[in-house]
């Protein structure tokens, strides 16, 4: 981990390409194993309001998602 960098790109690829998907799945699992939460910015149908969806499995990522954002788990402050 590199402190002070804000977000960094971990992996990028096309999920329809087998090798890319395997790499993305591997990185996804690694982040969750490291204790991160994964969220996908989404838009609510109808109202168009933006919100986030937490995902715990690669298969839960909406097919139209462009990115998954990992962030540390919340804890009581």
């Amino acid at each position, binding site marked *: *981990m*590199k*402190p*002070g*960098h*804000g*977000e*960094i*790109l*971990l*992996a*990028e*690829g*096309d*999920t*329809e390409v087998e090798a890319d998907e395997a790499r*993305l799945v591997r*990185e*996804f699992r690694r*982040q969750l194993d*490291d*204790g*991160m*939460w994964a*969220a996908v*910015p989404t838009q609510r149908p109808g109202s168009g*309001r*933006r*919100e*986030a*969806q*937490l995902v715990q499995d690669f298969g839960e*990522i909406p*097919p*139209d*998602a*462009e*990115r*998954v*954002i*990992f*962030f*540390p*788990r*919340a*804890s*009581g*402050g």
Partner: protein
Amino acid sequence: MLLALVVCALIATALAAQLATRYVRRRPLGRRNRRPGGASDRRYDPGRERRAERRARELLRSCVNDEEWTMYRDLGFIQVAGALRTTGSPEGDGAERLGVILDQRRPAGSAASADAESDGRGPDTGVAYAYLIYPHKPLVAYIPDSGRLLSEYCVEFPDIGAHHGSRLPASDDVLAKWMALTSDERRVVADANMHLVGHQLDPGRVRRDIWRLRQWQTRRLGNRSAPAG
């Protein structure tokens, strides 16, 4: 044929998932925490911190609603509506439902100590309760219609595996809270340490922020309804 190609191209673009994470470090709290020429001096780079915050702001902007972004840019915090909306009395019903969400975690005496200030209805009619998201400060639950403050929810996103005491850049902290609240509000409030308003935040400051928010919303509504030209 052309249509099929365009759709495929769109799908291919949409499926290109990006996995991103962010790293951070705590800004030294003061000069006394730094040792000249020591390890902490080598680690701290104000330029890097500024760049990290700039990137964090861009990420935040790309994720939240336009109104929320401009709110954060102008006021320094974001308001997020609570998940449960009511059609009855927003104040009574909203507070009651919030209590249900919290799985009866409300500390004894909170109802009595909740701020009952009422200074008129704002532009948020219809939102039973909402949260104010501040960077590196507790979430504040309140009732927009009355301005009544409900509770503080102290929640942190410690940077796992980084230097001891590191924390997210301010805008990343806001984004993490926003994502957590909009995706799983129940979980956030369950994990947070709940306190009466005033534990960490100055209630007067929060009331002033709510007033600023109302002014801001009123101006925004006015700008929208003003005839062009």
